[in-house]
């Protein structure tokens, strides 16, 4: 597969390490959320057959974490964003 890195352009997916659903960005706050909320966050997956937003890490590249929107049936990639930007757009900061 080829991932069009927002900074570096097309790169072979072999340079990346896959993590999983991009919802892993939305980690609850451990001081307020309990076991059930963390359970939902860490374990439950939508696992769609179709468009999937997922985290890839450019380990053999610039070490950027990316959010890749990819179709799990065709493997077509329609969007690639820096995970940091996505995280900020979700209101994450420090």
């Amino acid at each position: 597969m080829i991932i069009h890195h927002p900074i570096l352009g097309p790169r072979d997916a072999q340079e990346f390490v896959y993590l999983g659903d991009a919802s892993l960005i939305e980690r609850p706050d451990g001081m307020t959320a309990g076991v059930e909320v963390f359970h939902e966050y860490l374990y439950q997956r939508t696992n769609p057959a179709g468009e999937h937003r997922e985290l890839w890490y450019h380990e053999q590249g610039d070490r950027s974490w990316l959010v890749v929107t990819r179709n799990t049936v065709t493997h077509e990639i329609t969007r690639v964003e820096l995970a940091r930007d996505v995280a900020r757009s979700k209101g994450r900061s420090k």
Partner: protein
Amino acid sequence: MSQSHRIEGGQIDRTKTLRFTFDGVPYQGHPGDTLASALLANGVRLMGRSFKYHRPRGPISSGSEEPNALVELRSGGRQEPNTRATVAELYDGLTANSQNRWPSLRFDAMGINDKLSTFFAAGFYYKTFMWPKSFWEKLYEPIIRRAAGLGSVTREEDPDAYDKGFLHCDLLVIGAGPTGLMAALTAGRAGKRLILADEDFRMGGRLNVETFAVGQALGADWAAGVVAELTSLPNVRLMTRTTVIGAFDHGIYGAVERVSDHLLAPAQGKPRQVLWRIYAGKAILAAGATERPVAFENNDRPGIMLAGALRAYATRWGVKVGERVAVFTNNDDGIRTAIDLQAKGVDVVAVIDSREGGALLPGIRHLQGAEVIDTSGKLGLKSVTIRQANGRSETIAVDALGVSGGWNPNVNIHSHHRSRPVYDDAIAAFVPGQDGPPGLSVAGAAAGAFSTHAALKTGRDAAIAALDLTGAAPDLPEAEDAPTRVTPLWFVHHGKGRAWIDQQNDVTVKDVKLAHQENFTSVEHLKRYTTLGMATDQGKTGNVIGLAVMAELTGRSIPDTGTTIYRPPYTPVALGTLAGRSRGKEFKPFRLTPSHHWAKEQGAIFVEVGNWLRTQWVPKTGETEWRQSVDREVLATRKSVGICDVTTLGKIDIQGTDAGAFLDRVYANTFSSLAVGKCRYGLMLREDGIVFDDGTTARMGENEYVMTTTTANAVTVFRHLEFCRQCLWPDMDVQLISTTEAWAQFSVAGPNARNLLEKVVDQDISDAAFPYMGAGNVTVCGGLRARLFRISFSGELAYEIAVPTRYGDALLREMLSKGAEYDPIVYGTEALGVMRIEKGHVAGGELNGQSTALNMGLGKMVSKKKDSIGMVLSQREGMVQENGYRLVGVKPVDPQGKLTAGSHFLEKGAAAVAANDGGWLTSKVYSPHLGCDIALGYLKGGDRKIGQRMRIVNLLGNLDTEVEIISPHMFDPEGERLRG
């Protein structure tokens, strides 16, 4: 009798003679020959035996679709089983042997299977061999396994090298027949980066075979002209002997280039084959079409082949397969074979044309509405029996028969993304369907456009479309544009004999009928039940016929019956090629420590730790047992001082104004409160509350920390930290970089550790100036920058000292010589393990990805006062059970008693059953200090069992040892030594 069947013409170099042997018999051929063409030129038709019935077989094709003519090529470590003689390029000195026969190809004892074939109907084995139960492994299966298989593998190492590589292009053209050449010419002239790949050693495809003109030239000459032009273009890469094996995601194609297979052996330093990963902006599949036979009784005898192959042997290779030849066809292309052969002076005794009507061939006996119903000739064709339109049968003596049932477009690569081909009634064949690999278009015969004109035109158009070309395109040369005129004929209805569909796997029309009778009517069931299409040719010639037979039996149309799709690779690929250079010692790169060269001089024993080679121990003269060395290293360290290379531990530089706050989030314990110049043991959890990693992290400055990870987790911890930094807390001011290899780091441990270090460190490192858990920048040996950490994994007064890696070797030698008065020794990973287990420090065996801080006795380290990764989920009920596993120390009651890591805990007197399983030993060593085996283990409720006696049982080694459960801190539990 040399080359008795060689006739005039062909693209072989008759000025040179190549010698080769088949089954030990010497023959001659010419450059340009394949093994099959050369054997046929020598009158050899029998080249193999079938898989199941061991039927005598010759080649049916002249290409990679060949199911029959499989040989063991070469010998020794280079022996290649199942090599298709039809594509094996002849070279001087080639040796080949027939396979799957005993004692010889002509007299194969297993040929008895053919006589008993009625007992070996499709799937018979599913219905028998079940009694008595134990006989399957003992009797039936061993017999079946010995009989099965095709070629044999030598047990020797393959001596040849294989390479891999990466290519980039705007356009990949797969196949260099008329379609591919025209596409390439169009793109090449437009200046596009182009790769043209063809599996043959000569480009041109069917143009090398056909006798008609393209433009003003013979087709082959036109092709040669185009190849010459393309060769002159700097933007074009022509790759002969290169098979595109698969279409993978996003325009990545795999291709195998056979660099040296046409040579006796690869040239010095050169690989046998190269696996290329081609990154193609666009691709055109111009793979042509494969002729298919017709199933009729005994249609598998040597001498019966595809009509196009019969023609190819005559025209391209100058070989007549037989003296008296007939052609059996249902389409006009078969007719072409008769015409070309006759023009070559071959005696064409009959054309058996299943179609009715139309013009009769002049000068040839042309029987219309006729079919071949049987053949004779045990080891090679002697006659065919035909049924004429009027129903009369007749036997005709022939020694070769060309069969054409039409042509199947080579859609294979187009369906590698699971696109299903669709049936085209006009050509009675499957053509590419929808949803093929994005960026891949199909042209020419592969798309069902069979005439030469259509090939040239669709090739050109495909290139224009793929690349959005706007300039002038090359003119199309004049070429034949004749229709194929095929009237489907899949199998000849006649009698009770066997008519082969899949020749290698011996699948006959009868087998398909039986599958239908038993309701294995889905195309996938048909394939799996009969093994149709599962042979080395993957059904390139037979699949469609099997499908058509099933369609007739079920009364459904062929499209309704379905089709199987093709998967990579297009043709089988040597595993060596797929592995490239990653084999033997080169399987993974080595990582060498800064002390490696010193250790090698000392005769050290090394151990693989991931990709690292670490010193396991350093034997001294006279030491014959590893334990002698390890015990000595431990005792010498505890007595005076020992040095260990710990460079392999991961080191991560963490800077930024939020570095401390960041560490508080990623570690279970707190780091923001750590004073500058101090270090602290850190425990890192995964989000699921399981311990991820541990290590000491030092605060080198207000906004600067150095984190240490375990050797094993250095990469995964770094990745995790980047995840936390970028995805969870994107606005924290934290910068990370690995410095693992930048510093050579040595542990210096033992009562004389400080004394020794004082010989090299330029600053005051007294206990007052550099207390326990101190950390800081120092210099050594008169000003070399260094880092010093006062940390201990051994329980001794200990430091870790780091210098830039290039000075590591020198620092080690300097410490050994400057500190000689303390008799320093260098210890390896074994002694390291002994000392850490004596101290109850966790390492690999305990950090197993299944254990919590609580399990390790470190539960209190998980701070609840702050949010950190894993804190919440570490509190789940199943992970805080009172009777859960706890880390304990173990020693045998009898000091002579033995322990083994991985052994399990049982109570005294308890039966060795799972219900009594108390846990297991994670790590075990011999402690020279305590004079007995000691171990760490996870024991259920272990914290409440200290002082109790249990048994340690290893059921794999008949070990049953009474032990005492003790604190994991087995040596100097108060830690007086390390604070000394």
